[in-house]
């Protein structure tokens, strides 16, 4: 690979992003590890490059730009303001079979209230970035967890099941396992407290905290344990057959956006589900893609496609590569600022990252030749 060629492409990419109104920013490489682990969970930690500060604080090399950009946004002004950022630089992540240090470039757009147009702007810019690297006829996977959320709300499900299913979105085998438990095996609690009311259970738990010498300071309270204990009876009842059928049919829907929209409408009608708002938003987004000149045939919607990180809240997309992870990955993460900050301010946000090492190989006409 020629460094000069890489440099030129990187420069052109940067010009593309800043030309679209996204201010280029330079960000630190080293952050407190908890920033990433708190947001992305323990599973990310094993991919992190860790070191320690003098005082013992655990530090990490940035594994991506989305979290650092969001931190920068929150630290440099009023959270809800509108701002577009672009970046390019090394990120560090343990990847089996791939280099642990690699270059990512991308864009993050925060604070825009016109979500539909912002989603379309991002996707169009991602297509332009792919074209810059000579990626021919990309087939882009798109998904929308907001549709699944709307489906869950319209189905006859108990709240604990709704939460479990929502959490498993993006992990289809796991979802299928849950759905298969419809009317099936129950999980009866092994306790003499079964059938008691919340107050009785709460008192019994309080006693156990006392006799075991375990405090509840900072941890789970007797209140929340009792509430969940009583609510668990609903989990044992499983998923009603009708709801299980609708979920299974939903997860299978895939194809061009137009065809998928039609299939979703048919499903909603047949099962008498109120998906009107979510489908209207989906239709508006398809229209916006069209208005942005995005070829509908380049898009492959899949109803079960989503990311399992809980700060992703809606539209997601991915330019797949033939050999490993995505060339470009992006999506809407409206919950991230709330997770980082005081938990109150949720700033609408959408963005994407280009994996430069992968896209350079994918975009070459013939690998290894110039």
């Amino acid at each position, binding site marked *: 690979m020629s460094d000069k060629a890489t440099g030129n492409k990187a420069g052109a990419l940067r010009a593309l992003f800043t030309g679209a109104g996204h201010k280029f920013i330079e960000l630190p490489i080293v952050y407190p590890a908890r920033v990433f*682990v*708190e947001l992305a*969970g*323990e*599973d990310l*930690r*094993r991919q992190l490059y860790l070191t320690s500060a003098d005082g013992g604080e655990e530090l990490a090399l940035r594994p991506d730009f989305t979290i650092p950009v969001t931190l920068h946004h929150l630290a440099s002004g009023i959270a809800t303001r509108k701002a577009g950022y672009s970046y390019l630089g090394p990120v560090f992540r343990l990847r089996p079979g791939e280099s642990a240090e690699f270059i990512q470039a991308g864009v993050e757009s925060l604070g825009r209230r016109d979500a539909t147009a912002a989603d379309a702007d991002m996707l169009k810019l991602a297509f332009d970035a792919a074209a810059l690297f000579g990626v021919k006829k990309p087939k882009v996977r798109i998904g929308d967890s907001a549709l699944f959320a709307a489906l869950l709300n319209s189905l006859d499900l108990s709240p*604990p099941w709704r*939460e*479990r299913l929502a*959490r*498993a979105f993006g*992990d289809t085998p*796991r979802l299928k396992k849950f759905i298969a438990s419809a009317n099936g095996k129950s*999980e009866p*609690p*092994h*306790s003499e*407290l079964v059938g008691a009311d919340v107050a009785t*259970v709460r008192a*019994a*738990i309080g006693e*156990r*905290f006392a*006799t*075991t*010498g*375990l*405090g*509840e*300071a*900072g*941890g*789970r309270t*007797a209140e*929340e*344990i*009792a509430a*969940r*204990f009583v609510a*668990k009876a609903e989990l044992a009842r499983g998923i009603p057959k009708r709801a299980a059928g609708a979920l299974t049919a939903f997860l299978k829907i895939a194809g061009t956006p137009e065809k998928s929209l039609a299939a979703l409408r048919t499903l909603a009608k047949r099962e008498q589900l109120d998906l009107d708002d979510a489908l209207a938003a989906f239709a508006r987004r398809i229209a916006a893609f069209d208005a942005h000149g995005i070829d509908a045939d380049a898009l492959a919607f899949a109803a079960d496609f989503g990311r*399992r990180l*809980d700060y992703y809240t809606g539209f997601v997309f991915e330019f797949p590569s033939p050999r490993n992870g995505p060339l470009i990955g992006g999506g809407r993460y409206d919950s991230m600022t709330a*997770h980082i900050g005081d*938990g109150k301010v949720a700033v609408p946000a959408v963005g994407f990252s280009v994996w430069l090492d992968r896209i350079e190989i994918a975009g070459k006409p013939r690998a290894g030749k110039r």
Partner: protein
Amino acid sequence: MSAPLILAVPSKGRLQDDAAAVFARAGLPLVSGATRSYRGRVESLANVEVAYLSAPEIAREIGAGSVHAGITGADQVAESAEGRATLSLALGFGRCDVVVAVPEPWVDVETMEDLDDVAASFRPRHGRRLTVATKYINVTRRFFAGHGIADYRIVESLGATEGAPASGAADLIVDITSTGATLHANGLKTLADGLILSSEAHLVASKAIPWSAAQKKTYAAILAKLKAAV
């Protein structure tokens, strides 16, 4: 003379005594070097060098390929040498289970599925992630990932892990237990499907170190004699 086979043997406690006993029964008595030395040899085998290390160190060195073989627990191998070691022979001592244990007052939590529910709703409620104290960081991550649990954070424990929930250092633990008495004394209970692995001491060979023909032959001889003795 060709390079010796390096065999790592536990340097302290019950494991050291049990390992010494099984080697003696096999007709391969271990001989320590000078006082306080951490090197030794096998009485009847000339080309073996014995390295006395702690059980976790033995697994790490086997994984790193700095010793050929050793006596350590399957739990330690799972933690520090997964995929880089062969468990050649179970030795029948050092039995323990690695389990997930939660505070006994958590009456609503009986399975890993319950724990996943609790983990997912923990941060919105408490403003931090659910924490798990353990010495078994890699074992815990694999097991939790296998159950689809992502919303937690590991707190590395160096001392008495079972005390972590009482001291407030963590919400729950992953640790070894043999009878469950220690867990119970600390107000903890294991989950119904929370058994991660059942371990015992093994003769373990490293896949991460080059083996000469002579070293292989020596190892085969040790394995055969130990096999006859357990």
